[in-house]
């Protein structure tokens, strides 16, 4: 990425000149990698999160609900999955939004598509993937996330399981959109700035840890080390990665750089993608919040459908890439 060339120069300067480390040593390699990646990721995060949250102020609840209700089946699922990209990276927001969609009369299947894609395909994950693996992998991740969300929502929508929602969900009506004053550009900027700060404040320790661990692996673990255990030819790698990813939601910002370094050492790309999708898309904290709106059985169905989707995608990529 030529745009980050100055950052590489800075990292080189710090490591080889200011600290006077020898080229081609493990320590210099690791440190150089760490400095470069950390600066690059923070620049990307600040710029992209700011832009996304600024644009998001133009997307009020009412518009979204109107837009999604009354769309034909598959189209509704695809649109809901795409909408999930634009909404904040937090399961806490995803569940209330899901509830809002259902209560506004959006078909349950489409609402589930949203629920899958909202945490899974988010700007922070995409920035990390873009920064660490390049745009092709980021795009692949986004596309497969939207695809899994569309299909999962479609499948769940056809199961006729409305009775597994908590009673109040279908009885209640979501409130009319709050009377919020028209936002001035200044207010939008202030929101975007606060939101960006909030996100960075939340993820920075994990990014430092993740990139740090990644840098150590980069510098010290021999290339191809993991191929013997978790290469594309190992059938168990994908399900194992999917299950390991489930309890790790909070650390998504740290996991990605770490796993990024592992791909160099022979971890197959499809396995990595499964892992990341399961880290972001399925998480126990989310299930706890979901429990407020649906019965455990529906959470299990939801998790199972998404799990299968993630694993199939992982296998597919291990074959294709």
């Amino acid at each position, binding site marked *: 990425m030529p745009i980050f060339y100055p950052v590489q120069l800075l990292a080189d300067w710090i490591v080889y000149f200011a600290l006077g480390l020898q080229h081609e040593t493990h320590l210099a390699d690791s440190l150089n990698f760490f400095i470069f990646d950390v600066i690059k990721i923070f620049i990307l995060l600040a710029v992209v999160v700011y832009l996304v949250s600024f644009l998001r102020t133009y997307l009020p609840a009412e518009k979204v609900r109107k837009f999604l209700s009354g769309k034909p089946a598959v189209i509704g699922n695809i649109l809901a999955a795409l909408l999930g990209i634009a909404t904040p990276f937090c399961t*806490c927001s995803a569940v*209330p939004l899901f509830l809002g969609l259902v209560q506004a009369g959006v078909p349950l299947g489409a609402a589930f598509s949203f629920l899958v894609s909202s945490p899974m395909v988010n700007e922070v994950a995409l920035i990390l993937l873009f920064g660490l693996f390049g745009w092709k992998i980021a795009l692949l991740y986004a596309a497969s996330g939207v695809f899994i969300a569309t299909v999962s929502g479609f499948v769940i929508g056809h199961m006729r399981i409305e009775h597994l929602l908590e009673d109040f969900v279908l009885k209640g009506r*979501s409130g*009319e959109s*709050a009377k919020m004053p028209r936002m001035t550009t200044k207010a939008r900027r202030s*929101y975007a700035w606060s*939101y960006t700060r909030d996100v960075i*404040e939340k993820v920075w320790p994990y990014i430092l840890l993740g990139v740090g661990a990644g840098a150590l692996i980069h510098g010290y673990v021999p290339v191809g080390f993991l191929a013997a255990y978790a290469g594309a030819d190992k059938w168990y790698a994908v399900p194992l990665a999917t299950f390991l990813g489930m309890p790790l939601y909070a650390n998504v910002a740290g996991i990605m750089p770490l796993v990024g370094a592992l791909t160099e050492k022979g971890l197959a790309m499809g396995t990595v993608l499964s892992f990341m999708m399961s880290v972001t898309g399925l998480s126990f904290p989310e299930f706890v919040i979901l429990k407020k709106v649906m019965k455990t059985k529906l959470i299990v169905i939801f998790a199972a459908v998404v799990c299968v989707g993630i694993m199939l995608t992982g296998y597919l990529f291990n074959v294709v890439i």
Partner: protein
Amino acid sequence: MPKTIKTIQVFGSGCPTCKRLHERTVQAAKELGLPVEVEYVTDLQRLMDLGVMQSPVLAIDGELVVVGYVPDLKKIKEIIMRKLAN
């Protein structure tokens, strides 16, 4: 005599993010010496009734002053002070 604040509410789904907003708001109210209990609402239906797209939400006297992110302590105090001033 400045206006007083009757209610401060934090709405959220009970996740770490809204817990953080609640804690900071409690802290802010305490530091400003407000004799108001900060109500923490995790009933999702009540969040729905606000008609917002994002959580968490901070409402002062029923007006939504923060939607969708967690400001730092200083900012929360500023917001409360502004409400007190007008």
